[in-house]
């Protein structure tokens, strides 16, 4: 037995190495981004106006709150959990911004901070008691909705002008939505994939025990992820408030399923830790733009729900297929 024998595994063929390199260069974010670009391209082809600065703003602005919601959900899914309450949470944020903030900004901001703390506490409860996140967040969704209705029994309120103009900020040179989209995507992507704690957070979702053994606090990681989710929920609520100018407890109910779909389409997996910020934003664009595209093509309104569901199924079937092919190829 000699120590000079160098090769521990059979050398890889050039093609194999190239494929591996491609696989890493085009991570899970690649397919959804491609899909978003294709959908957007189709929309431009059908209605060239979409590509104009006004068009971009019209098409993309309503997606900004959804993108924040998807990012919020992404943090929860990164923790290996699922959040069925994010829609009501965003609705509550919207109501607080439209009703409490105009009267008393301090009370409003304290309330919003309280909401973040509540989310952190929920994360701790789920982590420490080993509770199923689906049911806990489902129960909490009723609580958020109830509190919102108590604050604002019927939709109304007036969002402060400052918030409205901040959200609708649109320098003519570059469409405002493009600025927000870029800043948010880059910031989250940098934090999640290029910061050390981001790596710890992703690691804690996939193998909490391993991360704990490496000397990190798993509870703190869980809390961080829930706090991040809450903060992005608040941002989603902020943008919804600015865009609509008023408060509505029910406003974001549909975000629950859309946000989960966005993360999954964006290359995320329920296994935890497997998320990508760029992918999630692309996933949000896909699920958000899909409705518009179906509308441009002229799909009947009754079919739109099924069409969206079908796309989700197709994406997952496709991914299952890809995984299966890879597995078969590996065993051959």
């Amino acid at each position, binding site marked *: 037995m000699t*120590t000079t024998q160098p090769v*521990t595994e059979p050398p890889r063929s050039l093609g194999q190495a190239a494929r591996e390199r491609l696989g890493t260069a085009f991570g899970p974010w690649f397919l959804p981004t491609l899909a978003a670009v294709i959908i957007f391209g189709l929309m431009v082809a059908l209605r060239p106006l979409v590509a104009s600065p006004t068009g971009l703003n019209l098409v993309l602005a309503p997606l900004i709150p959804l993108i924040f919601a998807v990012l919020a959900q992404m943090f929860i899914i990164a923790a290996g959990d699922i959040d069925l309450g994010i829609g009501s949470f965003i609705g509550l944020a919207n109501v607080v911004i439209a009703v409490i903030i105009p009267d008393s900004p301090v009370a409003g901001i304290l309330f919003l901070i309280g909401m973040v703390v509540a989310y952190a506490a929920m994360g701790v409860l789920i982590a420490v008691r080993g509770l199923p996140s689906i049911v806990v967040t489902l129960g909490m969704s009723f609580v958020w909705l109830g509190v919102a209705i108590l604050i604002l029994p019927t939709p109304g309120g007036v969002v402060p002008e400052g918030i409205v103009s901040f959200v609708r900020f649109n320098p003519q040179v570059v469409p405002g939505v493009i600025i927000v989209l870029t800043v948010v995507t880059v910031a989250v992507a940098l934090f999640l994939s290029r910061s050390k704690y981001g790596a710890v957070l992703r690691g804690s979702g996939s193998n909490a025990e391993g991360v704990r053994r490496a000397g990190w606090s798993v509870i703190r990681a869980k809390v961080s992820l829930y706090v991040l989710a809450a903060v992005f929920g608040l941002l989603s609520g902020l943008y919804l408030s600015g865009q609509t100018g008023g408060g509505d407890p029910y406003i974001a109910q549909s975000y629950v399923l859309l946000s989960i779909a966005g993360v999954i389409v964006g290359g995320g997996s329920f296994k935890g830790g497997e998320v990508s910020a760029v992918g999630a934003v692309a996933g949000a664009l896909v699920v958000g733009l899909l409705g518009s595209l179906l509308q441009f093509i002229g799909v009947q309104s009754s079919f739109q729900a099924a069409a969206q569901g079908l796309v989700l199924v197709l994406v997952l079937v496709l991914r299952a297929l890809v995984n299966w092919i890879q597995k078969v190829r590996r065993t051959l």
Partner: protein
Amino acid sequence: MSDQSPDTLVVQGVSKRFGSTLAVNDASFTVRRGELIGIAGHNGAGKSTILKVVNGTIAGDSGTVTVNGIARSADTTVAHPEKLGVRTVYQELSLCASLRVDETAAIFDHSARGLSWRSTAWHNLRTVLDEMFPGHGIRKDAKISELSIARRQMIECASTMIDSTVRPALVILDEPTSSLDAASTASFYAYLKKRAAEGVSVIITTHRLHEMIDNLSRIYVMRDGQVLSEQRAEGATKESIVTAMGLAAHESSRVAPIADSSTVTTTDARPTTASEVIVRLEQPGDDGASEVFEIRKGEIIGFAGLEGHGQLLALEAVYRASARRSGAVRAPRRTAHHAVSVTGDSAYVSGDRGVRGIFPLWDVATNISFSSLGKLTAGGLVKPKAEAALVHEWYSRLGIKGQSTDPITSLSGGTQQKALMARAMAVGSDLLLLEDPTRGVDQATKSEVYELLRGQAAEGQTIVWYSTENEELRNCDRVFVFRVGKIVATITGADATEDAVIALSFGGQDVAPIDLEGAVR
């Protein structure tokens, strides 16, 4: 670090009990600065447990642990052992599948900070990797989930040796080489020796005894939680270590003797070649022609070999190939190494009772009757009286203690195992498949189990018995010894001594176990 003490680690009188299992029993040993030592012992001897007490992951019950001259009571845990210079590679891998290699490095390397945290961590890790495993072929941007088990193990091993904020003083490696090939293993030990010369102390557990003898300075042998002997590696041989491990077995066999071998192999109406073939295993031989191994009705066949060499895979293939009704035949089942065909139905006893055995929410009775429900139902309903009668019968036959209405988790480990035996035996299937069924079972009960199995065989039940305790293979009619997935020898139960089995499983030279079981679990 405190240089006043020549000993990096002193363990004194540590004990640790898990419920009814005394995993570590008054263990003491010492590791000197810059020394490589090994801990050998059978499965469940307590190796992993004592190491976890040493690094402070779990609290022991009594004793003291002194690291670098700083003593602590063993019943405390340590939140950050890495800050004391204690690094560990655990038996179960602790890497995060979703991270890249350089990110993984950074999670271990607390010195990698700032903007260039990834490149710093990767640089630190690669420096070790390149030397520890030349030609490792690991790229920094590969995802852990895409790496082979061997490469993951390389990353874990290397990560313990990086010079982070606190330099490593004591490195604990729990079966670090279990999936490395010979060349990697060699370079790995070479690296360890180099670091030892710099003053790093290393503790290694491994079931590859020659590795210890060739590379370490001293070897402690554990059995049943006790540190029984200490050997200098220079003078040690595989036989001497096995004897140290086996010595205990001989002692215990004096306490509760295994039925003497004459009973096992020669008496009773043992099956002749005339009786019906129940299991047929076919494997390609060296010369290309296929070799066939047949198991006949009423035989007790042992599957032996080193852990991870395909015995378990073959046993499971027999289970999957068996039919759902007595006497029925199913299409043969192919594994990587065998084509398996079975006549008749089977019942399976798993030794990994936590994962593959008990239903923890149920009481003992429901656990026992589960596999026999087919014959306990009338009009689709389970007949309570018949169920109670069956449970009662097997309570008596196996001498199970306690109430059948208690939750199964309230039983001691050995008793749980008996309940699982009862579940499988109560089926009355053509085949009884045993996966290390006496794991955690005491000697007296073991003898009862052996007796019972011989009774079953005499009644015509065929038994296939995978065991990691080579001693008990002497209860078999024949033993199939596995190596690298294939059956390499067939010996009679009488010849199945510990030494014989070990010699055959090593085949004269060492082989890395292949990752066969991993694929099934």
